């Protein structure tokens, strides 16, 4: 995945968001001394390669009533975790979904799915839907609710690379 210096400048200029003006890409291009067409081509290429996941709005889910969340964790047979994980990730209430290493004996779970809902009951109801979806391929599961935020710093990309 090769990102050149111009891509890094584009990332630095847009990771905080796009300007709300009729021609936002022209505005970003002008600020960077690029042609709009060049900027748009580079954005499309980065999107095709997965460097950009999507260009979209992220609503504040707390403001829209999704105030409860839980980290659900599942012990899924290795042979089917790729296929089943893809189906869990596609659920509209799952915001992160990863296969991760187990840490036996303390931690048998290899599939992590963050579930969001309007209440803890709603989260539990969605957890049951995932359990149904996984069926017999799942040998155990748990859910961890956060009780306190101990630290929260925004993850910012470092566009200059090494520093």
């Amino acid at each position, binding site marked *: 995945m090769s*990102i050149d210096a111009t891509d*890094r400048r584009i*990332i630095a200029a*847009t*990771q905080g*968001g*796009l300007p*709300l003006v*009729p021609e936002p*890409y*022209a505005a970003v291009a002008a600020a960077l001394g690029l042609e709009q067409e060049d900027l*748009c081509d580079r*954005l*499309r290429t*980065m999107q095709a*390669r997965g*460097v*950009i*996941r*999507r*260009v*979209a*709005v*992220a*609503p*504040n889910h707390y403001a*829209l009533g*999704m105030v409860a969340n839980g*980290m659900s964790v599942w012990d899924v047979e290795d042979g089917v975790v790729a296929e089943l*994980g*893809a189906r*869990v*990730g*596609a659920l509209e209430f*799952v915001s*992160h*979904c*990863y*296969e*991760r*290493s187990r*840490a036996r004996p303390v931690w048998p779970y290899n599939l*992590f799915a963050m579930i*969001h809902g309007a209440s803890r009951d709603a989260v539990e109801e969605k957890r049951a839907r995932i359990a149904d979806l996984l069926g017999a391929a799942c040998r155990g599961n*748990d859910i*961890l*609710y*956060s*009780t306190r*935020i*101990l*630290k*929260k*710093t925004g*993850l910012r*990309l*470092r*566009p200059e*690379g*090494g520093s």
Partner: protein
Amino acid sequence: MTLDATDRRILNRLQDGFPISPAPFDDVARELGLTQDALITRLERMQAARIITRFGPFYDAAALGGAFCLCAMEVPVAELESVVTKVNAHRQVAHNYERDHRLNMWFVLATETAPEIEEVAMSIERETGLRVHLFPKLREFFIGFRVAA
């Protein structure tokens, strides 16, 4: 602020994606039967009211070469506050949550290079005398997450 039906349609539509084109607001506004100015005004209002958290390209943090790892520790309740202080003192600890499990502290390490993950985890083990369990990502699944507005 109170959201009306048009605001909700805008939020639902723009979670699915925003065009990379010369006049993207005009493209979306036509689709929704709005004027470009009305769309932009509503987005400004929702951004100011923090209904919209972010609007634009979402970058894959790992694509720029950084390394990330979810970690967890089993911290005796009596030691919790002192362990929090020691763990959070590392600038590579990006977020840290207390959770209701035997593994009661969960944090993300974000480092410039992959070997640093192990180094920071080992420092924390030395400083706290407690085991740091690493849960590296083996596979990331595509997310269909949508908040119905």
